[in-house]
């Protein structure tokens, strides 16, 4: 069975400081992992994805994430937060071992303080 856990429901950072949004997954096989962002009153948009290539993945808007198999983690980071980063972020795991299953995390709401 697969699952994904976002460790923080809310994260608050000051503008210009680093962002860390944590995600742990559980999967019997090597999964594909994604981060999506949902701005208020807007649709979900892909930030980045990991599909068994380079473990450090760069996405849009300066975000990146590192796949760590030993820690079953896929944390999202950004060196310097911008006000426009305030949104909800979802970690998503996709498993294709025998059947295909996509599971969203519960989300982390990022607040950026000016």
């Amino acid at each position, binding site marked *: 069975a697969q699952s994904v856990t976002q460790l923080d429901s809310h994260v608050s950072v000051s503008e210009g400081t680093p962002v860390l949004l944590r995600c742990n997954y559980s999967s019997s096989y090597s999964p594909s992992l994604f981060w999506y962002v949902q701005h208020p009153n807007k*649709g979900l948009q892909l930030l980045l994805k990991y599909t068994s290539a380079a473990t450090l993945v760069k996405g849009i808007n300066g975000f990146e994430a590192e796949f760590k198999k030993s820690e079953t983690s896929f944390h999202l980071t950004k060196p310097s937060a911008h006000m426009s980063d305030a949104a909800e972020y*979802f970690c998503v795991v996709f498993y*294709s071992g025998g059947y295909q*299953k*996509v599971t*969203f995390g519960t989300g982390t709401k990022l607040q950026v303080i000016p």
Partner: protein
Amino acid sequence: EAGVAQSPRYKIIEKRQSVAFWCNPISGHATLYWYQQILGQGPKLLIQFQNNGVVDDSQLPKDRFSAERLKGVDSTLKIQPAKLEDSAVYLCASSLSSGSYEQYFGPGTRLTVT
């Protein structure tokens, strides 16, 4: 390219009534997903189509929810009869194929059941 279209954007119904949502995916996308997103939670996959066949409907409450994808293009999700706990945003997404492909999300339909 045109994005994923959904209609209606908002719907208010009374419990025990029926409702239908429509989704038009991006042209050429073989895979279509329906998600339910309850306020404060991550999207939950209800059903996944590959062309006009069902890949995964394990979380679809089949006693009241039904979905179809005629001719492998447009899709309709129906609820009959609706319950108060069905109040949520219903998201449609499409991707080129099933697997580790980016999902493109529509704006969603916000359903309120009173």
